[in-house]
């Protein structure tokens, strides 16, 4: 595949959270194949070892760290160690997340519901806050926060997930403005419904005795069988484009795997009409 002339990925350091499986694994393999040194952060040592082995087998460079993104002390220690021993972090992909409980909000366990907010929103904010100061000092860095259509639109009975992703989309937009003048770029990226990770886990809810879970499972299976299903190849190619440095005009925006980024850039430059273009907001 033709690489962007000005791609900053070869030789750079990219940190991916939730990099042990699913979409995180997919992206880690792809970014490593583009020539970046990949730093994987995940809770499971076993999964980290397995993905690292795959990357090395393909000739890629990888480092792994066991950490829970909600543990701020550990996250900060990992980031310090990466900066010291691997090199300056050029790209951060906040991918760690969970689907959370399925059911009417008032029927879900509170602990699970709130844990979804803590991991998906809190984890993203904690890792960003740990990585950004050095990026600001260097005047360069890209952050991609993994989000979902469920946050841009809605997903009743999966409310903790939907709410956490809406929060991350808004966080990305604010953060992009805050760190734009230091040369950083921030994107909220929806990779589409991929036949891996969370979506397959949700689709497997077929046998659930809980109506809401069975309904969500059926919906995921339908979507994956339909033309709405995303392709892993296209989803990772879009991520590589976002990380390339060529789409700084789109910083702060909500981007999906099916968007034509060059078309979005042209529209976004029309500032008067599109100040809020692809950002969360209601119609007047």
């Amino acid at each position, binding site marked *: 595949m033709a690489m962007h002339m000005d791609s900053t990925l070869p030789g750079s350091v990219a940190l991916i959270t939730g990099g042990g499986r699913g979409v995180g694994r997919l992206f880690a393999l792809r970014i490593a194949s583009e020539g970046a040194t990949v730093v994987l952060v995940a809770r499971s040592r076993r999964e980290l070892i397995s993905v690292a082995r795959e990357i090395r087998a393909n000739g890629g460079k990888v480092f792994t760290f066991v950490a829970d993104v909600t543990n701020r002390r550990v996250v900060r220690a990992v980031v310090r160690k990466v900066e010291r021993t691997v090199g300056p972090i050029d790209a951060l992909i906040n991918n760690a997340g969970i689907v959370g409980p399925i059911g009417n909000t008032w029927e879900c366990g509170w602990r699970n519901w709130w844990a979804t907010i803590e991991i998906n929103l809190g984890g993203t904010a904690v890792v960003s806050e740990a990585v950004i100061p050095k990026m600001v000092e260097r005047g360069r860095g890209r952050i991609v926060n993994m989000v979902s259509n469920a946050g841009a639109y809605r997903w009743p009975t999966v409310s903790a997930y939907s709410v956490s992703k809406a929060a991350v989309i808004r966080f990305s937009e604010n953060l992009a403005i805050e760190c734009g003048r230091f040369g950083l770029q921030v994107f909220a990226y929806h990779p589409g419904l991929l036949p891996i990770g969370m979506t397959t886990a949700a689709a497997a809810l077929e046998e659930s005795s809980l109506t809401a879970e069975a309904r969500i499972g059926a919906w995921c299976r339908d979507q994956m069988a339909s033309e709405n299903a995303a392709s892993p190849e296209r989803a990772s190619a879009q991520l590589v484009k976002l990380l390339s440095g060529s789409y700084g005009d789109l910083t702060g925006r909500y981007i999906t795997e099916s968007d034509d980024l060059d078309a979005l850039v042209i529209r976004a430059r029309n500032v008067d009409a599109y100040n809020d*273009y692809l950002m969360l907001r209601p119609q007047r």
Partner: protein
Amino acid sequence: MAEQMDHPLRDSVVLITGGGRGSGRVHAEQLAFSGVRTVLVVGSADELEEVVGLIGAGGGSAPCFVVDVTDAAAIRDLISRVEREKGPIDALINHAGARGPIANAWECDWNEWWRVIERNLGAATAFCRAVIPEMVKRRRGRVVNIVSDAGVYSSPTVSAYSVSNAALIKFSENLALECQGFRLSVFAYHPGRPPLEPGCEAFQQASAGQLASLLSGAYDSLTGRYITAYDDLDLLVARVGRPVAAKDYRRLRASA
């Protein structure tokens, strides 16, 4: 007051959190003076004393409770007690919240930053979870989550506030769909920013009036939408009712 005669919420039990200060107190006072059976939840004994005094001085009365809004178990106990002592809660207004730190996100004190998420999103969610099961049983109830337009538009350097409000707007949208089948309505309401004097009081009264309209039942077709003090509710109803209207109208969404 003339409106006391025919206030749509007369004899309804309305529980309002964060009624001890700011616009929450204005809304609480207006409800209490209109003959609504207002139950207040405030953050401290000082606030309790002040707001109970103010409402009493105005000729009204409202039972008032102090609770830590980040304590989900305490909230559940409080709601059981209110339902037992004051009767079924007809409407819940989630007003409690915090503005939080003002700086670039990575320069804020993390604990302060996260506390805003807990107080704005967590508290409203916890109150909804405590109140809605009983409303569902009765097939009757309305919830208004008080939000800010900082959750709708980009708001750098007040990120925790903005993010928590976006989350609460999205929560309201999901919740509305979940409980629509049980005939409950949920709104995200931005009470606006009062102008500096003069006009402040009139604006706040109008904003509280808009809130009462949402709770009246006349605008249930707007359930799940983001509504502001500046909106013409009848106009919004007309737009939402049009078959061509986008189903995302007045919902947080990305424009395609």
